[in-house]
């Protein structure tokens, strides 16, 4: 079922959290609401499932206007960050809860609970209580409870935040598998870009209550619309260098290089102040478009090594290189920038697109 938010706004008292947000999630699609904490992504989620009242705008499930419906009347499954299991009920009863509320027959409930717990490999847990389960097991129960009533929409609020690292990896693929099997339109709220990129079809990146860009993970990474997106997506993060355009060249005190061909035609005036974003993988040993600086930090990540390069004017570049370590701390090196991959931003932090 398609979800459509039209000019959705939400304010708490006089504090406007979200203003005129538009978002469409296609049928069966899984989209991530990604953003730093406090950007309004959980608020949006709560408004979609009806926990929060909508201040203005409309929310549509398919053709049905559900803006004013209370959560009880929407068929939405929600997985909460804290899992929110009912502590006094057994796992079986936890999963059966939405069905019991609908007064379904005991036999049906039994069949559905068995079915969903088989899908989630947790049949052996049904007699226990939430307090006796580990975090990962509780997560499965929360997911089962959200899915057992065959919801129109599945909403997940930071579902992996309370799990340890290895479980997170496991549950990532698990959730994606279940979502694809059920074909349930889903929204995942997360502040973790890796989670968003690995689990979802598309990402809606939010900041300060505004969706900055909606797109596939690849889109976001290679074609960010503004500086915030470029800075948020990518780990280790992109580095920005402030400078200006002069005579077809980007110049700052610490470095300069010729503009790539496709950008020369863009509306860049000489003397315009710009900021360039250079991702760590685009600064590598080489001689083309050289940049010189001092290595101030080295971090081995196993397969790759991360370097910080301090330029003449004090600005920093990051480089990630595979293979053996080529230099040591304090060395002066000259490395090469892949100019065609450099992202240009104007003074308003908007991306300067190639012509």
């Amino acid at each position, binding site marked *: 079922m398609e979800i459509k938010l039209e000019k959705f706004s939400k304010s708490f008292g006089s504090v406007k959290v979200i203003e005129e947000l538009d978002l469409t999630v296609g049928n069966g699609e899984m989209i991530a609401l990604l953003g730093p904490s406090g950007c309004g992504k959980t608020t949006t989620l709560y408004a979609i499932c009806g926990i929060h009242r909508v201040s203005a705008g409309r929310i549509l499930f398919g053709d049905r206007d559900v803006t004013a419906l209370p959560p009880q009347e929407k068929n939405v499954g929600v997985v909460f960050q804290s899992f929110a299991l009912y*502590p006094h009920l057994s796992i079986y009863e936890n999963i059966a809860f939405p069905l019991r509320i609908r007064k379904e027959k005991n036999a049906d409930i039994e069949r559905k609970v068995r079915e969903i717990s088989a899908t989630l490999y947790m049949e052996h847990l049904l007699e226990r209580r939430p307090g006796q389960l580990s975090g990962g097991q509780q997560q499965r129960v929360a997911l089962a409870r959200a899915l057992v*009533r065959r919801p129109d929409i599945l909403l997940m609020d930071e579902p992996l935040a309370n799990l340890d690292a290895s479980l997170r990896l496991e549950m990532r693929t698990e959730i994606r598998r279940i979502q694809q099997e059920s074909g349930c339109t889903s929204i995942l709220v997360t502040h973790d870009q890796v989670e968003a990129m690995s689990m979802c079809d598309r990402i809606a990146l939010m900041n300060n209550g505004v969706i900055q860009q909606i797109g596939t993970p690849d889109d976001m990474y290679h074609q960010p619309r503004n500086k915030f997106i470029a800075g948020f997506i990518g780990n280790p993060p992109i580095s920005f260098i402030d400078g200006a355009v002069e005579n077809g060249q980007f110049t700052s005190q610490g470095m300069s290089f010729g503009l790539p061909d496709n950008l020369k035609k863009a509306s860049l005036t000489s003397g315009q102040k710009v900021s360039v974003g250079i991702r760590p993988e685009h600064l590598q040993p080489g001689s083309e478009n050289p940049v010189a600086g001092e290595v101030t930090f080295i971090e081995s990540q196993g397969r790759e090594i991360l370097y910080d390069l301090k330029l003449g004017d004090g600005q920093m570049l990051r480089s990630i290189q595979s293979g053996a370590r080529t230099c040591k701390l304090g060395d002066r090196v000259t490395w090469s920038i892949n100019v065609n991959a450099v992202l240009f931003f104007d003074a308003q932090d908007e991306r300067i697109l190639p012509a």
Partner: protein
Amino acid sequence: MRRLRSFLPLWFMLPASVIVTLFFVIPVFMTFAFSFTTMSSDTGVLGNRYIVSEATLLKLKELNIDPVLVASLGEIRFVFDDTNLKNISQLNLKPSLLKEINTKLKNKVFATEKKLYAALKTLKNRPRSFKDRKAISKATVSSMMNKEFLTADEFSQGLVSVGINLDAPAFNQLLELTNTSWHWTTDNYAELMASDFTLKILGNTLFYVFCTLFFNVGFALLLALATFYMPSGQSKIFRALWLIPRISPSVIYVLLWKWFTFDSGFMSHFLSSFGFTPQDWLKEFPWVFVILANGFVGASMGMLIFSSAIVAIPGDVLRAAEVDGAYPLQQIRRIILPLLAWPILFVTSYQTLSLLTSFEYILLLTDGGPGFFTTETWALNAYHTALSNYFGNLRYGFGATLAVVLVVVGIILSLLYLRLFDFKKLVTEPQIET
């Protein structure tokens, strides 16, 4: 958590220990001990007392003791013994008269005032004025009646002084009959079992406790749940309002109930406009108001505890219930009430015990009436029996027996509650923390 290892904290607790011992521990043991005695205001709490009272005279008559002796015990005499002569010397009499009394009337006993006056007339320096004669009469009047004697010797001296002389067996019999001191007995318990009132008061108590408890806990839950689903500003005001019964003095509070219910009070006034005859509603339906007055006061504590317990339920759990389709009533029945099991147990048991033992509102409102034992509960009856008996003696021993029964019932009830609510399971922590 590290615990202290020295005895220092015990010293800090000393003042509290003293208070607990003085006001709670010792009284409990003394009550238990008193319940096996015949103590009353007749016997006093201290040791031996020999008193000739109206009751003694009646008992003597029943036992067919010499009627002359019985009569003389009850009569007043005019006695010129050493103490009384001393009293006379204090009077403002002529020295010559005093001297004559001291010599001629010493150790004389007169049965009536008339005989005394006749004897005075025979004196040379006889008192001229009626006032003087009366003063002498007053200074010499003596009686065995209602006098306290601490020992058998004093008692025998007392008898001699009013002119009663007894042989040893008769004296011993009288001594035994007039000894009012208490003694050890299990009769109190036997009396309790046999008394017709026991069942009546027990019934009253059960009715009072269960009705008030039901109203109390139910109303507290209702308030807590209602305020939970209210907008927060309104619920704050409402909760604050419900604390007023806690801080209003019980005497004033009960007075307001009396004003509310009496035959020209608010209720009669209000109902008369619907055609009801004004009447004293408290006298008509005493239980209703006893239960309401107690219930409303008690509800505020339960409300506070339930409110905080509901707020302590993680918000996500209730949100989950909402999106799972549960409307407030279903949330209450399936989520909130089960999660409140422990606070409900606590409030119920706490209130049961305090209702069993507290009686101040009934005392102030109906004092066990109207009529005979209509709203008399066990605790109130213990108080009435031991400390505020309208009908006669204060029966400390029997009152203590009633109190001991109350303590035992309280303990049994607490154990029962813990059993019922599966206390151990409630306090056991989950094996794995999230």
